[in-house]
């Protein structure tokens, strides 16, 4: 915390020095002629990044930070924000420690301590909801990949370019029919904002999609043993299992299903299911497992390129949330270019008018981003994915499919 403050004040000092020198040379330049001045107005544009790099979500939070830095480097290496005289992006990362109280104070601190143009974050919906409230009050735009539909209610500074929790549900239910035509589904979900929102969506839409839900059960995240829960799934007679969980629980659930010898098609949803660590921990048993994601590294060529860069840094493919936030950074860049200003209100207004269908900003299933009045991408929809030999392949719907469905 202290370190980032020091860094921020150092940056401010540098900026002051720079301005003083710039002003001095501007006077000199005035005498010499106007042509030297171009490009000198370049200042930095501050972007805040709120991620849980410690605490229970640390693993994913840290990977998000790597992606956020990669995105900013890509933008700066390509010449920064051109309409602001090539201003570079300056990413200010803040650790929200996987904790809602800390998220509130960190968001406040980030906004009051820095001149920010926009913020992105926070991975977990429960944290993003808090950060979004603070941003709304401070009138700083926040762009996020978090999926809870609550983020689209009564907010003017919150933008969600990717599929919403309720849409995930529909995709998941449709995917149940990929495996069998009479699906009997058991839904188990962690009792958090993310888990409840996703599973309620499933429950509401199931009848309309012709899917029968035979078990609907919340569990407390971070259990020591998945045995009792799977015992319950077994006695429900389900032939498909939807598990709405983060990584640690999901590893235990999948391994326990194999142990029990239960023959059931598993759809792990999103969250912890679509990150490389899942395959590393579960191994071959994960092949054929289905999931849904708001982003996948094979959605288009731009995403493949980002994926290659990220792989060079980390050795792993870029997962949903991290890839999505690279796209979000480019959406902010697009807004900044059109706003021609680093003022958060102007950036917000430009974001509201965003309409892209090519380049890095359009890396999303469907390849188009345009925000409606509720801050939702009107083209946003999830992509169905399947684990195949350690890679995550888009298999659903047909127009987004990049590989063949592996029959289990």
């Amino acid at each position, binding site marked *: 915390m202290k370190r980032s403050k020091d860094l921020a004040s150092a940056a401010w000092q540098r900026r002051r020095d720079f301005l003083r020198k710039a002003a001095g040379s501007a006077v000199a330049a005035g005498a010499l002629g106007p042509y030297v001045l171009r490009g000198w107005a370049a200042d930095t544009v501050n972007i805040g990044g709120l991620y849980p790099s410690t605490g229970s979500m640390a693993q994913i939070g840290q990977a998000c930070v790597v992606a956020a830095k990669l995105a900013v480097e890509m933008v700066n290496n390509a010449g920064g924000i051109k309409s602001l005289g090539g201003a570079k992006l300056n990413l200010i990362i803040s650790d929200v420690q996987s904790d809602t109280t800390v998220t509130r104070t960190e968001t406040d601190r980030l906004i009051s301590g820095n001149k920010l143009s926009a913020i992105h974050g926070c991975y977990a919906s429960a944290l993003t909801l808090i950060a979004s409230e603070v941003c709304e009050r401070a009138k700083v735009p926040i762009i996020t990949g978090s999926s809870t539909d609550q983020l689209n209610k009564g907010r003017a500074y919150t933008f969600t370019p990717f599929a919403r929790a309720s849409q995930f549900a529909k995709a998941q239910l449709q995917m149940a029919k990929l495996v069998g035509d009479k699906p009997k589904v058991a839904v188990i979900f962690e009792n958090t904002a993310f888990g409840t929102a996703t599973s309620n969506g499933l429950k509401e839409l199931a009848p309309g999609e012709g899917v029968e839900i035979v078990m609907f*059960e919340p569990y*407390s995240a971070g259990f*020591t043993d998945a045995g009792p829960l799977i015992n*319950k799934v077994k006695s429900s007679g389900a032939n498909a299992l939807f598990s709405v969980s983060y*990584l640690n629980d999901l*590893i235990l659930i999948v391994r*326990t299903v194999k142990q029990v010898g239960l023959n059931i098609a598993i759809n792990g949803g999103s969250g912890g299911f679509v990150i490389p660590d899942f395959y590393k921990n579960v191994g071959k048993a994960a092949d054929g497992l289905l999931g849904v994601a708001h982003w996948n590294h094979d959605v288009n060529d731009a995403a493949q390129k980002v994926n290659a860069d990220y792989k060079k840094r980390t050795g792993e493919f870029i997962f949903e949330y991290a890839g999505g936030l690279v796209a979000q950074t480019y959406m902010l860049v697009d807004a900044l270019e059109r706003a021609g200003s680093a003022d958060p209100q102007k950036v917000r207004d430009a974001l509201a008018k965003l309409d892209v269908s090519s380049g890095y900003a359009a890396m999303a299933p469907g390849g188009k981003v345009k925000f409606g009045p509720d801050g939702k991408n009107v083209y946003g929809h999830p992509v169905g994915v399947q684990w195949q030999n350690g890679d995550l392949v888009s298999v659903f719907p047909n127009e987004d499919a990049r590989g063949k469905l592996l029959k289990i």
Partner: protein
Amino acid sequence: MVEIVAQAVINGLLIGGIYALVSIGVTLIFGVVKIVNFAQGEFVMIGMYITFFLATQFGLDPLVSLFVCMPVLFVLGVLIQHFLIRRVLGLNDLPQIFLTFALSLLIVNIALMLLTANYRTVHTAYSDEAFHLGGLYVPVAKLIAFGVAMLLSALLWAFLRTTDLGKAMRAASQNREVAQLMGINPNRVFAVALGIALALAGAAGSLLMPFYPAYPMVGQVFVLMAFVAVVLGTLGNVVGALIASLLMGIAESLGIQFVGADSGLIVVFLLLLVTLAVRPSGLAGGHTR
């Protein structure tokens, strides 16, 4: 129905064995040295990582690394007693609480720095196997863990009952001053108690590794259950902590099966509250041994 209950009891009993290893360590330290070790879960985590690295670097089976983990953590326990805990013993409770709490924070954060927050698993031949008996199943890795946990608990019990050092530990836990008058060296007894407690945590780490992923915060999952077990089984009572751990495992499992998967802990805490209302000093009454 009978089958479902039986399966729930089996699941609960097996995980209860792991709770027992952690809680026996906590209760032993509390009984003998009279301090609460908030860092006990972190030693489970250290045990898990030692097991993980032995498995990935040298291909050692987690059960074999038990024989590395336990001595290493025993020595660590003796060192911690000698260099840290010994210095705060004469003082009031606060420095003792802060010491072990600080230790816990320190270990977790060092682990985060050195090992990152990634999950690490070890796959053994028996990791995903289970014995099937009719409609019931018993996971092999958990059965082994349970068996070894019970064996270690029995050995500890025998040690406390039959050896001079064990008797000295029980004496020191009953009345430190009188024990000193009888010629028992408290520092030596305390060092051994810390060593044994940490060795048990290390054993829990090795036994968990075939079926539970390791990560820096993993200790906190188990230490909460351990603290409940220690209170439920009467503070300082080793047999009480063992029985309480097994009961809690079963209560949690039955709770998940019949109340709701997010209510396992509610049933456990209900068990604790009822016990404390009926027997305020825990299941074993006032006895600490």
